[in-house]
């Protein structure tokens, strides 16, 4: 076992128990039902926001649970969707009578389990809507029925939508804002080495020294392309331009960026990435309003990073800047 854990089976529950203990001032752990909820949600909020997903992507989503962001989080097993019962119980627990909004990353298991929970909530008279997060440019293919994967945008959407919810907006308005917001986000990830799979201790896939996986996912799924790794500035330039080609922001527009470590890269490297990203955005005449740099959506110990760009109007920037009190929101 390459990972520091008592055993494979205890890796997730031990971490959840530790998280609950350390952040007891901010979160409440319902261990039996398998969810966490915010201890002090904002008083102005009417619609409860619930998210969740497989473990191994920390600090997503638990780190963003609390005032200003999420009301409840349902962690699944390692890289596996939470059970519909967790989502159902969490949604019932935090519902304030004005509906529950599910933020769901676009993976089949998550879609189905959140979907079943939504059906069960409807039977109980709890109104429920969904924002599907599907920002990963590398999985954008007209042949695929499953669509783009959900990755880094989850953090930005959780923040902006949380602040919007704190203004007292209703369920449909928030769902519309969220869907529109996701449409303004695209991400792209690269890796120089896969994560180690806890069950085997071996790399999820093999990559030769000096090679780069272009468009990698956060579950050890291979990218469509493996290539010789270019120098950092060239790599970041190409990633940025691919994102901008998809988002098509006119010169003078504002963007918010996320420079995200996938678990096995250093801040030293990530700031080098951020430097070149900012330089390219300058060259395009775009206004880089805000940047987050660090580990936000990880894939265990993958040696890689992702870039997320969000086109941001003044209201989005205002919501991004609104205070949040959660274990991992950095500002």
């Amino acid at each position, binding site marked *: 076992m390459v990972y520091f854990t008592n055993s494979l089976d205890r890796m997730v529950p031990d971490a959840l128990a530790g998280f609950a203990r350390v952040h007891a001032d901010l979160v409440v752990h319902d261990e039996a039902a398998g969810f966490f909820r915010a201890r002090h949600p904002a008083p102005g909020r009417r619609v409860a926001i619930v998210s969740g997903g497989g473990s191994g992507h920390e600090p997503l989503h638990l780190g963003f649970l609390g005032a200003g962001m999420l009301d409840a989080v349902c962690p699944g097993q390692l890289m596996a969707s939470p*059970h*519909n*019962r967790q989502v*159902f119980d969490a949604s019932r627990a935090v519902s304030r009578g004005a509906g529950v909004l599910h933020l769901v990353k676009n993976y*089949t*298991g998550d*879609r*189905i*389990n959140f*979907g*079943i929970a*939504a*059906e*069960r909530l409807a*039977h109980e008279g709890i109104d429920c809507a969904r924002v599907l997060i599907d920002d990963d440019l590398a999985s954008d293919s007209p042949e695929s*029925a499953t669509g783009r994967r959900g990755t880094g945008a989850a953090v930005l959407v959780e923040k902006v939508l949380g602040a919007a919810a704190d203004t007292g907006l209703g369920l449909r308005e928030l769902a519309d804002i969220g869907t529109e917001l996701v449409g303004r986000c695209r991400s792209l990830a690269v890796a120089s080495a896969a994560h180690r799979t806890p069950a085997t201790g071996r790399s999820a896939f093999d990559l030769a020294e000096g090679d780069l996986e272009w468009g990698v996912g956060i579950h050890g799924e291979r990218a469509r392309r493996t290539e010789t790794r270019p120098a950092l500035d060239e790599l970041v330039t190409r990633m940025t331009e691919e994102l901008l080609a998809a988002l098509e922001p006119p010169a003078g527009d504002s963007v918010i960026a996320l420079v995200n470590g996938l678990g096995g890269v250093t801040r030293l490297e990530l700031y080098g990435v951020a430097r070149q990203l900012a330089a390219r955005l300058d060259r395009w005449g775009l206004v880089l309003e805000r940047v987050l740099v660090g580990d936000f959506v990880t894939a265990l110990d993958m040696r890689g990073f992702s870039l997320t760009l969000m086109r941001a109007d003044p209201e989005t920037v205002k919501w991004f800047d609104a205070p949040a009190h959660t274990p991992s929101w950095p500002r």
Partner: protein
Amino acid sequence: MLEHYSAQDDAASPDSAVASTTWTDIPAADAAFTEGWMRRFAASVRATEAQLTALDQQVGDGDFGTNLRSGLDASVRALDRAGTVSPAAGGRAGAPLRTVATVFLDGVGGTSGPLFGLLLTELALAAVGPVLDVAALRAGLTGGLAAVQRVGEARPGDKTLVDALYPACEALRVCPEQAGSRVALAHASRAAWEGVRLTARLRARRGRASYVGERGRGVPDPGAVGVGLLLSSAGGVVTGLPSFVPGPVPRRPD
């Protein structure tokens, strides 16, 4: 088509059910019937678990039979605890269905199990009266199909359990009220198995089986087989899958 079928009750095969019973004499489909139906479904899945597992190993991760069986074992225990409430005492035909639905939604892993839970929930919600009549059956199964499609986003032809459920609903749509729900279920079951047979020709576009692509051709969808077992179990216990379902279990002597 169902020559491989064998059953403990005389009405397990839809064909024999329709042919051999005088339907005007049979008792109404009350809570005792729906409870018996669910218990027979459990027995059918226990009897075919090895075949279901073999099937799912060819197109999925092989846990479908075990998930379904353990969910139904837990359901039978829940039915034992709940006890039967007679229609005279206000027992709703949907109550046993609701008991099983909750076990499936809460306790069964994978994705197919909870989808069966959704289907049974809709059936239970439609069966609010003391008797599950044809209208309630139609509304419940059609509502179940809609819920499964909303959640799973599968259409007919995607090689999922929808391919058995959709033709079953179509069969109910044209079934007259006077037929009674037992005959209607026999018709629905026959249509579902025809749908199961056709899934073998399809390439999966949704669900776990989509990952194996062309390799899954020739193998029917395990979830669709589960729907066939559910509907056939209304008439009797199914002790073997039809011969068009490949598996390691040797063909029984006729």
